[in-house]
């Protein structure tokens, strides 16, 4: 038996592979505290990215420019919220404080959210929403691909599903970026305007901090250079077909990972959290 201090043994993987555990059982405290803190931080970053973007997409329901997109946008939102639920459910077990996945979504204040700022930006027009979806998916797809080999089995297992769903998002949103960017004068103008508007928020995807650096070392995040290379390749190919200028990621606006958000998040939460705030404890 490998001892607790054996570097070859990964406590997170041991725990997640335990056949006796199911989705609702509590962690037994065996996980190293610092690793648990970093994994928790990662789950909130990924979970909040997916929840907030999923909520933004759901705002299109009934308002999309055509029926097909009225189906597409909430369908993609559903995929994103599925990932958020996994993240929050797992985070609740790691914290062990009796919180539920709903508590993370509906009872945290804005400064407790850890998503990047791009996902909370208001939807704008259809071109804006589709370009943001494309940029997010082009980044998240290689991230999930890398996470299929994560040192944490539960994260790796989920990545195996999410990577396939995200590939479909890349294709769907990428095709719209091309249709609009290489479409009419008006659609091209709107796609370029969307790129100008979203440009300052793209860099936050690739920011690293002490937490993300430790996560890479622990095998809980893929090598950022690999993810960046895949993102750059997908974006370059797509932007060329869309007649868009090459993407240049310069200095931008960030702070979401540290809980510094825009005023727009308050408005989003006021709607998303209304029911649980006004009528606490409601369930289906």
């Amino acid at each position, binding site marked *: 038996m490998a001892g607790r201090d054996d570097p070859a043994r990964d406590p997170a993987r041991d725990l997640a592979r335990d056949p006796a555990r*199911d*989705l609702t059982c509590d962690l037994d405290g065996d996980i190293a505290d610092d690793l648990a803190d970093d994994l928790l931080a990662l789950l909130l970053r990924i979970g909040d990215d997916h929840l907030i973007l999923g909520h933004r997409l759901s705002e299109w329901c009934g308002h999309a420019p055509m*029926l*097909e997109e009225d*189906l*597409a946008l909430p*369908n*993609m939102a*559903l*995929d*994103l*919220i*599925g*990932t958020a*639920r*996994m993240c929050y459910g797992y985070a609740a077990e790691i914290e062990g404080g009796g919180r539920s996945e709903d508590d993370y979504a509906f009872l945290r204040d804005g400064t407790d959210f850890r998503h990047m700022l791009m996902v909370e930006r208001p939807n704008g027009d259809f071109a804006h929403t589709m370009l943001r979806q494309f940029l997010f998916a082009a980044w998240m797809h290689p991230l999930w691909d890398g996470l299929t080999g994560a040192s944490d*089995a*539960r994260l*790796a*297992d*989920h990545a*195996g*599903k*999410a990577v*396939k*769903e995200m*590939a*479909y998002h*890349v*294709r*769907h949103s*990428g*095709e719209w970026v*091309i249709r609009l960017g290489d479409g009419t004068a008006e659609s091209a103008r709107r796609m370029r305007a969307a790129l100008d508007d979203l440009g300052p928020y793209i860099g936050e995807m690739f920011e690293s901090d002490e937490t993300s650096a430790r996560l890479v070392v622990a095998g809980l995040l893929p090598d950022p250079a690999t993810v960046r290379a895949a993102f750059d390749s*997908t974006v370059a190919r*797509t932007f060329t*077909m869309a007649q868009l200028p090459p993407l240049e990621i310069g200095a931008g606006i960030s702070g979401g990972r540290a809980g510094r958000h825009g005023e727009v998040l308050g408005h989003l939460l006021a709607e998303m959290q209304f029911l649980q705030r006004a009528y606490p404890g409601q369930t289906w």
Partner: protein
Amino acid sequence: MVAVRDIDQDFGRDDVLADIRRIAESVPDPELVVVNVGDLGIIRDLRHDDGGAVEIDVTPTYSACPATLAIELAIETAVAAAGHDVRVRRVLAPAWTTDWITPAGRAKLKQAGIAPPLPRDDGTGDHDYFARPQVACPRCDSLDTTELSAFGATACKAQHRCLSCHEPFDYFKCL
């Protein structure tokens, strides 16, 4: 003698497991009632746990498929109704693929007017923009079909249209 008795017990337990598998697999999908969970290939394994209960491994199709919980509860209810102590365990890996849908399941989908999923290696890469697999119309078998909508009424379907018989139809997306 002890060993022989143990073997007999194991055989008995295997019969029980086979019965339970049949019961579990016969549970219909709540959103696609023409197929059952056995047809979808989402029951991955089952076993007796240490306490004598039966543990059934079920894998979701999509990570947020709203039918996931309903299916798990329906399996538990059906197996419990047959007098067994049962627990469903949700497993994510290996990730479900439409390649696991059985030939019988594919035939039932087609009969219901839903084009069954093509194999994963249909030649269109995940990122091949505007490339679409050649889906046969479930009504007239024509390959002259086109995609109407990349997403459909459930997470697992897209909407296509046949250009020969002009009927629209659902396509079970390849995953």
